[in-house]
């Protein structure tokens, strides 16, 4: 985030003065965002924990923290883009389980070379994503229904393929790699490198490409997006495919990390990922949110978890807190807009948005054909 804005200010200087680039000073633009609130909260919680929670300042804390939340961190990246287009993907955790199963089967049953097995597994993840994407963007089905379906489907396949079996005996070299540290004694695990690379890639894709602009436009007003030549179907297909591929990668990582492929691996992870993304300031209606905010959101949840475990607080309390944070994160802006009493027209618009996961077109005249109804999703 800061990187981009400093860049802007530089160009601002060299640009001719006809139109100011920004209405507000840089600092204000940075501070008056939800992302900033999340980052601030993250730092607050982090340093509070360092100061007050025994063992949190130990060298292992960050190492374990990153190891544990690596899958969520990975999955959150594509999920951000998917949600910004106003869609959702509930099937990522099941995809992870399925790819894990494929990895195990390919390596142990079919005796494929390990690298090939990994490629195959990630390929399966990609295929899962493509299937979601196809149903959503070309058959024009509501993504929440589709991915609830594939959530069950992919999980069921994983459990069916493996049954009671827990496949292990993956090559040491690879399982160790997942716990490798960047350098001896450093508290940063090696897995951070692929994460950072992907984070930058997705960041550029979302914030510094025409494709990314399209992603936001689809979320804000897909009809207008279509009128400016954004290929909505293709965009969504690509995003779901990416979500699948990354889920495949995460599945492989998780399998190697735990050293075993099981049908019941990484249950309910999807909700944690979505919680993190929404906490990071992404609007469930699409069109709003940034990647830095999401990364902060993921880390926030990770830090809270780790700190509270260290403090001997049972997991359910952590769940309560995260649940309330999630509710607060959407409730707070609403309360703010109420306080700063907006024009009725605007409030009415939010009103009609509010009670619905899609954004109904208020000004869009009669929309009696189910097609446009679907496109709105």
């Amino acid at each position, binding site marked *: 985030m800061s990187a981009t804005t400093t860049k802007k200010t530089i160009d601002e200087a060299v640009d001719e003065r006809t139109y100011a680039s920004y209405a507000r000073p840089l600092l204000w633009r940075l501070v008056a965002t939800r992302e900033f609130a999340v980052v601030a909260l993250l730092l607050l919680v982090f340093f509070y924990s360092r100061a007050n929670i025994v063992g949190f300042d130990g060298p292992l804390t960050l190492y374990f923290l990153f190891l544990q939340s690596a899958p969520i961190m990975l999955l959150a990246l594509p999920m951000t883009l998917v949600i910004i287009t106003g869609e959702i993907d509930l099937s990522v955790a099941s995809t992870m389980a399925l790819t894990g199963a494929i990895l195990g089967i390919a390596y142990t049953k079919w005796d494929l070379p390990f690298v090939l097995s990994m490629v195959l597994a990630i390929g399966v993840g990609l295929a899962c994503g493509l299937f979601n994407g196809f149903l959503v963007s070309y058959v024009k089905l509501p993504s929440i229904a589709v991915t609830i379906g594939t959530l069950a489907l992919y999980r069921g396949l994983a459990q069916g393929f493996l049954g009671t079996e827990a496949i292990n005996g993956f090559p040491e070299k690879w399982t160790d790699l997942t716990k490798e540290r960047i350098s001896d004694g450093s508290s940063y695990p090696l897995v951070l490198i692929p994460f950072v690379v992907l984070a930058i890639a997705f960041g550029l894709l979302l914030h510094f490409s025409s494709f990314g*602009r399209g992603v936001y436009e689809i979320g804000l007003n897909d009809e207008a997006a*279509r009128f400016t030549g954004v290929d909505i179907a293709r965009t969504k297909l690509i995003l779901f495919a990416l979500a699948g591929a990354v889920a495949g990668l995460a599945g492989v990582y998780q399998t190697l990390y735990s050293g075993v492929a099981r049908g019941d691996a990484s249950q309910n992870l999807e909700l944690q990922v979505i919680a993190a993304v929404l906490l990071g300031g992404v609007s469930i209606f699409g069109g709003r949110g940034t990647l830095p905010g999401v990364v902060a959101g993921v880390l926030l949840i990770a830090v809270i978890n780790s700190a509270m475990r260290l403090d001997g607080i049972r997991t359910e309390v952590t769940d309560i807190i995260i649940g309330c944070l999630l509710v607060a994160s959407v409730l707070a802006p609403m309360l703010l807009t109420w306080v700063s009493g907006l024009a009725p027209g605007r409030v009415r618009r939010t009103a009609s948005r509010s009670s619905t996961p899609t954004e109904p077109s208020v*000004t869009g005249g009669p929309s009696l054909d189910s097609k446009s109804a679907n496109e709105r999703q």
Partner: protein
Amino acid sequence: MLDLDSVSKSFGAVRALRSGTLKVAAGSIHALIGENGAGKSTLVKIVAGVHRRDAGTFRFQGREVDFGSTAESKDAGIAVIYQEPTLFPDLSVTENIFMGRMPLGSARRIDRQAMHREAESLFERLGVRIDPKRPARGLSIADQQIIEIAKAISLDAALLVMDEPTAALSGVEVDRLFAVARSLRDEGRGLVFISHRFDEVFDLCDTVTVMRDGAYIDTHRVADTSVPALVAQMVGREVAELFPKVPAEIGDVVLSVDGLSSAGVFRDVSFQVRAGEIVGLSGLVGAGRSEIARAVFGVDRYDSGTVTLHGKPVKPGNPRAAIRSGIAFVPEDRRQQGLVVDSSVAHNVAGVIRRNLSKAGLLTTAAENKAVRPWAARLEVKTNALDMPATTMSGGNQQKVVIAKWLATEPSLLIIDEPTRGIDVGTKSEVHRLLSELAGQGLAVLMISSELPEVLGMADRVLVVCEGRITAELDRSEATPENVMAAATGTTPDRVHVALETQQVEEVTA
């Protein structure tokens, strides 16, 4: 009974209504006219309780009122037909009509028989046959409008407000509606009737109020005024000087459309547009003009026919391809189609060209701003910074942003739908000057407009669309209001003249 005095309303930066004044007497039909964006619907929505007025007085049947919701206005005895039909697609036609006040039978359960019977009799009265049990989904604009009317009538309210109820209706349906309206008036109710069609105003109404740019202008008894007088008050200046189209030398064919058809929307449409030429596409609202434009641009698919630009065929159903081949399209619904109102001016203007702005695969806001500034400057877009969201702009400025977005692509054909709908007079003439200037530079322009003066003033050639077919092609010289209206309504010019004498029409329809 209804008495609005200097009521005002703004949406963010947009001042929809500056001083709306409207006094309606019981037992009369009151026409409310004004150009697009004059503030008519906004006024109506204040009466209906959709919006709360910012200032001004609002009395109904003597009492000072301030409706917080449409429910309140309904209870007070006001029925409203909104400009855009607001039906519930999944519910049956009957349920739509009686929503919220369905007749209850035994045990407080809805009495469907009674409901259907009432619906039937309503349709009987309106002289249409719609299956009251069918769902509202898939109804044509015309039928939706009929149901809105039935809904409003069935409320039997003291005041009935109709915002462009006849927009999508055909002759006979309009006559039936008028008959009903008259009977309601004779029962002593008050009616407000909004329309862009003068013949209807003169046919039906007793008094007429003119609005311009969100302000009250004047009220006449219909008998004491005339079309030219009203037009003059609506536009506030002589039609001639409003549209300064300078004759440019016409080049060779840019766009040619052959036998374009799309089931249920338009049929066998063929025409050409040449460089430096402005072709006006005229017709009644709902005739399917926008659909033709949308099909040419590729946002809608079409069943048969061909679209070629500079002799090269344009891939159907693919806006990207259309853009690449040099077509620009300013759609009619600015807030829904033209703009992403929630994103910034810069992002909107760069919306199309941004694909060519990336350096080393990276697209920066700085690059966009750089590319955007000259176009914003050229169209004199009024904004204090490029990162302001378009929501904060007035209708006129929003329109400039849309046009800037498309001019930035340096197109060879500009399709512009309702170029000046809902923008102030000043911006209006700016837009017109711009259009003719562009044509002068050899741009081919296809202009859709519901405003006859605009079409007649701007177009070198006028194509008239009726019921989805091109019914007339008129040169600037032969394009008189009568001819165009005649072709648009599928009647003969003399019938249009007749329509202006209220007396005779009443004989015809009664």
